Every structure is written in structure tokens, then in C-alpha cells.
């Protein structure tokens, strides 16, 4: 079968099932089984699909996702979150959209420690969304900043996907990770600018509730009681990483431990709190992981049928200027990203793209970062976007995939803007690694 027929078949099946209202995971399951029968054939096809399903999900790297969701849920259901954010409200005063800025600041800081966008989004989402919702933030303003900032974790070092990308492409891992620092923080700045603009244009989207004015002394007292202990938990998690006691992946478990200790210390611990938090975690992580269980096989079918390599070969076959090649590469990454997880995408695309860009004389370090940003964006594009699914899980009941995607869209615009800036000023990427 020609690659375009294979591609059309697989894509129309999965999109068709989804449009008919089939749950995303099951749309993938059904497509995988049909696709395997077509491309592999026979009863071995079905057993191979099922056999491959357990491969991606049993990776330790995924462990922080449920751990951080559990930590965030404990924080919320115990009432600790309420105390912390109340105090923050009083300290930050009447600044509109303060929790949005707090999300960007906190998420960026956390990105310097964790290497997983999914873990970062899970933590920010379960920590912030319920509180923002309680305080009357519009869904756009609650979901968007988290989706944007969550993705920073894989651009600002450390970055699990970055390490994989560099090693698959044969680049120096250290230099590549350093190259992500400036673009990462620049992106955080762009997000801040975007939020400011969004609040200006649409002031009702963030609540304008009045808060009592308090004096310095009272401010200090409240901070000591409510913020410092939570700060200690954060410091503990950070300290474990910085002092080399635990890896970023392991530190998530200590975050849970820290919040548990706090709920005990503040007498907010109860079986009911644990029950609610565990159920919330099962709901989000169970849903996302069940999709992961079934989506990885889809990527394998795309590879097996020759659909993905055919499309990539086609997209890179034109004799056109470099910027057009990059645009075509970008479009194919975004297209693949609508249906694939980033790890599979890297495995498929790197052997095709890197020899090509080396021939064209494009700096591999620059291109690697370009790819990493495109991969980050692809996690936030429907219909298949792992970060979208995580957010959908933590968002209140009744939120639709469309709403989450709409909230993310302006932040994807920032990512795109960053790529343009990188093209105009390659120094954004290349300056820091050049110093090494």
C-alpha cells in the first residue's frame, strides 16, 4: 500500500471513531486492531497489538504523574490550598489575575527541577485549577496558563525528552540542555505578556473580588502560619534534587510525603481527605494512562505501515530554500503530533530530519530545540494531546476537550512566536552553549 493510503486509512479511522463520540482511548484501540489486521494480518496481528500495549506504560518515568496529581489533590481537599491562596491574595493585593501570574512563576521555577511536562502540568493543574475555579476565574484563564507553563518543563533543563532527543540525534546532551535555558525563560516572559494582554482585553475573565487590607505585621504573621510550611515542603522537594539525594522523578514521592505531614501538623488529615484525593488521582492518571496504553501502538502502526516515513520523505523531498524545508518539517511534526506521543515521534523523525538538516547546513543544536518546541506544542494540540488530557482530567466536570484546546491556543501562539524569534536571532539558542 502506498504511504498516503496507509496514512489516510489510519487517520480517518481514528478521527472517524472520535467524531462519532467514542472515548479517545477506545478510538485508538479499535483503529489499532483494524490497522493491524490490514497491515500485519492474521491472528498474530491482534496478539501483537495487545502485547505492545504494556510496553510504554510500564516506564518509571511516568511515576511522577500520579504522584504529583495526588500531592495536588491532597493539598486541595485538605484545605491547605485554601489557606495558602487566601494569604497570597492578601499579600498580592488587588493585582488582577494574580493566580495566573503565580502559575507562570511557580511553573517556570518548577520547570528548572523537573524534566517532565506531564508531571509539571499534572502538579500545576491539580494544585491551581480547583482554587482558581472556586475563586471565579474564567476557564480560559485557569486552563491556558497552566497548559503553557506545564510544557516549559521539557524545554528548560533538566528535560527527559531533551536527553532522549539529544542522544537519538547524537548531540552532546549537556550542550543541548543548556541551549534550552534562554528560549525557556523567554517563553515564560511571552506567556506573562500574553496573560497581561488577555486580562486587559477581557477584565471579567479574572475575578475582581475585594480583599481586606492588612498591615505589615498581620501579613508577616499570616505568611509564617500559612505559606512558610508549604514553602518548606517545596524546599524539601527541591533540596532533595539539588543535594543529589533523589532524582527529579523520585522527588515527587517526597512531595506527597511532605503534604501529608503538613495535613497532620495542621490537623487537616482525615480518611475522607485521603479517599477524595486518591479517587481524584485515579480519575486523572487512570484516564491518561489508559490512553497511553493504547496510543503507542498507533505510532507503531504508522511506522510499520510506512505511513510516517513516507510522509516525512515526501515532505522533505522538495528542492526549496531552507526556511521552506523548516516550515514543512514543522507542519509534519504538528500533523504527526495530532496523533502520536512525543517519544514515538522522535524515534521516527530524527533519523530522517537530522541527516537532512546537516546537509542543508542548519545548526543541529538550533534544530534540536526547534524540534523540542514543536514537540511541546504537539502535546497541546487536539485530538491527541497528552497535556490536554491531563488538564481535562483535573478540570471541573463538564469541561470539554474543545474548551481546553481553545484555552491553550493563544499559548501555542507564543510558542510559534518564539520559533520565529529563534529563526531571526539564532543567538537565543546558540549563545549559552557557545560559551561551553
Amino acid at each position, binding site marked *: 500500500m502506498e504511504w498516503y493510503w496507509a496514512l489516510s486509512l489510519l487517520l480517518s479511522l481514528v478521527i472517524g471513531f472520535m467524531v462519532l463520540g467514542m472515548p479517545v482511548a477506545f478510538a485508538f484501540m479499535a483503529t489499532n486492531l483494524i490497522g493491524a489486521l490490514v497491515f500485519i494480518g492474521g491472528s498474530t496481528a491482534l496478539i501483537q497489538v495487545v502485547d505492545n500495549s504494556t510496553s510504554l506504560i510500564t516506564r518509571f518515568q511516568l511515576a511522577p504523574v500520579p504522584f504529583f496529581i495526588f500531592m495536588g489533590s491532597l493539598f486541595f481537599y485538605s484545605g491547605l490550598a485554601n489557606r495558602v491562596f487566601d494569604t497570597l491574595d492578601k499579600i498580592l493585593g488587588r493585582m488582577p489575575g494574580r493566580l495566573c501570574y503565580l502559575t507562570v512563576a511557580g511553573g517556570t521555577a518548577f520547570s528548572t527541577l523537573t524534566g517532565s511536562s506531564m508531571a509539571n502540568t499534572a502538579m500545576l493543574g491539580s494544585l491551581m485549577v480547583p482554587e482558581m475555579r472556586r475563586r471565579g476565574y474564567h476557564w480560559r484563564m485557569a486552563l491556558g496558563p497552566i497548559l503553557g507553563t506545564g510544557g516549559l518543563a521539557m524545554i528548560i533543563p533538566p528535560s527527559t525528552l531533551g536527553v532522549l532527543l539529544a542522544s*537519538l540525534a547524537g548531540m552532546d546532551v549537556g550542550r543541548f540542555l543548556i541551549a534550552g535555558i534562554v528560549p525557556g525563560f523567554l517563553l515564560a516572559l511571552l506567556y506573562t505578556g500574553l496573560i497581561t494582554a488577555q486580562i486587559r482585553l477581557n477584565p471579567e475573565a479574572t475575578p475582581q473580588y475585594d480583599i481586606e487590607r492588612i498591615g505589615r505585621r498581620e501579613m508577616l504573621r499570616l505568611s509564617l502560619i500559612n505559606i512558610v510550611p508549604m514553602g518548606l515542603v517545596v524546599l524539601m522537594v527541591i533540596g532533595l534534587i539539588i543535594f*543529589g539525594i533523589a532524582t527529579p522523578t523520585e522527588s515527587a514521592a517526597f512531595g506527597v510525603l511532605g503534604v501529608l505531614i503538613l495535613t497532620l501538623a495542621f490537623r487537616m488529615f482525615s480518611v475522607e481527605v485521603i479517599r477524595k484525593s486518591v479517587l481524584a488521582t485515579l480519575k486523572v492518571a487512570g484516564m491518561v494512562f489508559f490512553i497511553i496504553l493504547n496510543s503507542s501502538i498507533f505510532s507503531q502502526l504508522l511506522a510499520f505501515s510506512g505511513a510516517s516515513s513516507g510522509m516525512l520523505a515526501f515532505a522533505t523531498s522538495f528542492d526549496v530554500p531552507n526556511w521552506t524545508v523548516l516550515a514543512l518539517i514543522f507542519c509534519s511534526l504538528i500533523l504527526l503530533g495530532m496523533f502520536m506521543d512525543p517519544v514515538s515521534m522522535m524515534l521516527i523523525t530524527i533519523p530522517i530530519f537530522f541527516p537532512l538538516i546537516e546537509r542543508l547546513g542548519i545548526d543541529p543544536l538550533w534544530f534540536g530545540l526547534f524540534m523540542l518546541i514543536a514537540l511541546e506544542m504537539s502535546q497541546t494540540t487536539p485530538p491527541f494531546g497528552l497535556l490536554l488530557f491531563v488538564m481535562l482530567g483535573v478540570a471541573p466536570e463538564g469541561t470539554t476537550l474543545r474548551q481546553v484546546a481553545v484555552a491553550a491556543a493563544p499559548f501555542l501562539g507564543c510558542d510559534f512566536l518564539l520559533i520565529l524569534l529563534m529563526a531571526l536571532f539564532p543567538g537565543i539558542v546558540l549563545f549559552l552553549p557557545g560559551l561551553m
Partner: protein
Amino acid sequence: ETTLTTQTALPTRHALSQSYIRHFVEPLNEAGKGVVQINLLGGPEVTPADRAPQAMQRGVIDILHIPAAYVAGLVPQAQAMMLQNVGIEKLRAEGAVEAYDDIFGDRLNAHLLAWSETGPGSGYYLYTRKMPAMKDGVVDFTGQSLRTTGAYRPIQEALGATTVQIPSGDVPTGLERGVIDGFGWPTVGLKSIGLAEAVDYRIEPAFYNLANVVLISRDRWESLSQEARDLVTRVARDYETASVQEMIDRNREDIAAADEAGIEAVRMEGADAAKYLSIASEAMWSRVEEKVGADEVGRLRGLLYRTE
């Protein structure tokens, strides 16, 4: 003309996959015009490495190129292939390849086409950030934490190290922050994973030998014409020999790159080196023995291991 599909269990740009592509896939397509062709589907994106042997067994793919250690869960004897220290000619001449062909046939219904990218001249190094202590002439890692996977655990524990399991994505941060002080890695590929800057010492000599296998399902093999089988066999033999030289060349390049990155060799020589290698090999032999029993280990030792 028949077309066989193939995949490698490592990413296609990996040095070991490149050797397979350059010395087996491409020559076979060249020599096999009109008789047999081979279509490389890709790397682990086609079937994940840990599921690829069964995919070959079931006939989902025809030919699989995979490190022998990756098959050890299904074929426990495969773990011992990295312990060979006689070289591919002797393995062929003295019946080890034949014995393993039977083993793979028995456990996976597969025919062993090639035992490739193996030693002498390949193997594994331990890399560390801290200079290890010496005890009775052999490195001693007491107090050091090394990143481990199943293949390195026996030697690392035998040398007193604390073993730490962390995902590969955490290795750079782990080294930087001191969660781990080092790790084990094949003699080829340190350059390509870009970790040369992150460590300071390489422990020499290299222990074990790399060992990859090329497997084809027996049903598929028997369905081929005699002409096609002869052709594939001939190309596979040439590939075995060429891949050994390829490993020696790659190893040299990697050492040069490591030198440039400032990695120092911590070298044991003579009797000390022999003792170090023996500790490594015996640790792995006893692991294999746990799985297949003393008799089978005795047989395998006779086939592929010589002690001076």
C-alpha cells in the same frame, strides 16, 4: 524475488544499528537482486525492543537485529553470549553458533543468522566521576553509587558499588547532582549519547563482549528458496566478520572523542586486569546459572569461554 522485512531493536542511528544496516541490509539488497530483498522498517518505533523477539516469532517481522541481552528474558542462555571470549571464528568452528541456533530454535522457533558486533575488541566500560579506590589491585566502588541495569548489576555489586536504578533520561541530572557517580556503557556509543562531558574516568580494560544476534523465524526461513537461503547465509557470514572490525574502529573513535572530552583511563594491567575480568565474568556466569542450572552453564562455558 522475495522481500523480507526487518527491524533493529536499537534506534536506527545507533552505532550498532548502523553496522547492521551497512554490513548486512545494504549488501544483501545489492547481492540479492532478483532473488531476495530486505526492507528495513526502522528501529524500536516499529515494535518496542522488549516486544520485538515475539514479533519475530509470530511472523509480524521476518528478521530481527537485537542485542543478545535483550532476548534473555525469553532465552536465558542468550545472556551468556556476552561472556564469549574466543572470537567469532572459533564460535563458528567449535560449534557454539550451532548450539545457540538450536537454543533459539527451541525457545523462539528462530534461526540464528548472525552473531554480530562482538569481540574481541568490544565490550563494556564503567565510567565514573570520582577516582575509584583500589583493593588488591582491582577497582573498588565501595561508597560510590553507580547507575545500574540488569546487565551491570552483578559486576557492580561484586565491586562493592551501591547500585541505583534511574531512567536514562535522568542520567545527566543524576550525575550532575551526585545521585549517581557513574554508569556502565558499551565501548561504542558514549560519544553518540553525548555523556562524555559528564564523567571523568573510564575503567579499563573493557569487560564482557558486545553480542548482537540476527534472528529469522524458522517457518519463514524454510519457506525461502535454497538459492535465497545460501545468499542470505553468505552475506550474514561476511557481516559477522565485518561487524567485528567495525566495532574495533568505532571503539577507537569513541576513545579519541572521550580523550578529547578529558576522560582519563584508569587502567588495570596484567594479573590485576585478569582478576577484574574474572570478577566480572564470574558474577555474570553465576547469574546465568541461577536461570539455566549448573549443567547448562558447564556446557556453555565449554563452548564460549576460555580462562588462561
